[in-house]
């Protein structure tokens, strides 16, 4: 009993009370940050997944890349100003995608002699999935389905830096400065990559779009 009374006394000293006060304030700050991060991540997660999916052409790898980027952003940059989160997040994501692409290239060289099937092969060899749907949907929807397929294929075939610049600028809506920050290059490089990506896509999609 005495021990409890003594500890109670220790906790109620001014120093400990001030620590408790600081902790309460820290809790509130943490809750605010957590809420802001949640909103931010929810607002970018789908587009981030599409970017990763187009870069990696594999849904599981894309999900891993997005989750990894989320983890790293929260772990290392949650204390940074909110307006810095987007370019930071996309920079982490871009690095993750690039690392996965490199690992895949190395693995591909090593395993080149094995008959490896990937998602593209699956699509090619599945006539049912390729068959047009029997449901008579609206014409607009069908047109969009076709446009999505053609555009995503064309974007996926762009060189990595052009693809990155195009998706960050056109899809995610980052400005030139933010895109440069996310890509880790100069604004001039961003403009060049973006311009070339647009030219390449126009050449491929001109008739469809």
């Amino acid at each position: 009993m005495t021990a409890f009374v003594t500890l109670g006394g220790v906790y109620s000293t001014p120093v400990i009370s001030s620590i408790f006060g600081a902790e309460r304030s820290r809790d509130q700050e943490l809750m605010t940050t957590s809420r802001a991060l949640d909103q931010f991540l929810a607002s970018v997660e789908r587009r981030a997944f599409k970017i990763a999916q187009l870069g990696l052409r594999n849904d599981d790898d894309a999900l891993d890349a997005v989750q990894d980027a989320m983890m790293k952003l929260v772990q290392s940059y949650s204390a940074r100003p909110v307006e810095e989160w987007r370019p930071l997040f996309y920079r982490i994501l871009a690095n993750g995608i690039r690392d996965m692409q490199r690992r895949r290239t190395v693995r591909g060289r090593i395993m080149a002699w094995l008959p490896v099937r990937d998602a593209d092969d699956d699509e090619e060899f599945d006539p049912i999935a390729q068959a047009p749907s029997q449901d008579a949907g609206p014409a607009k929807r069908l047109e969009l389905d076709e446009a999505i397929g053609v555009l995503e294929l064309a974007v996926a075939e762009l060189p990595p830096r052009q693809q990155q610049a195009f998706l960050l600028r056109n899809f995610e809506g980052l400005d030139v400065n933010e895109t440069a920050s996310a890509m880790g290059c100069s604004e001039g490089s961003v403009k060049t990559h973006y311009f070339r990506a647009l030219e390449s896509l126009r050449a491929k999609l001109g008739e469809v779009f």
Partner: protein
Amino acid sequence: MTDPTDFEKRTQEVLDESAGRLDGHTRSRLTQARHAALAQLEQPARYWWRSYVPAGAAAAVTVLAVVMWSNPADRPSASPVEDMELLADSDAPDFVDDGDDLEFYEWAAGEVET
């Protein structure tokens, strides 16, 4: 920044549509990924110092006790040499030289014996 061309607007519209059509499984996994990332905010060593308070208090009490016990100003000297010095001090009260007192002590001792 120049205004986006029709081609840019069209590609953006198509990509947005594509992102909006993600299947339930993918959306669910994205939500899980987000929650897993946010859970890290709760993990840093919060309240770590609370577990050290009882140990800290005990250590402080021990240190205080040791300091008080080892402080020589607060306890009597145990050295016999110091006692002898006190007795030999010329400024100390003299119990022996006074003849009246000696006679009184002899009388008191005799009274106790009888």
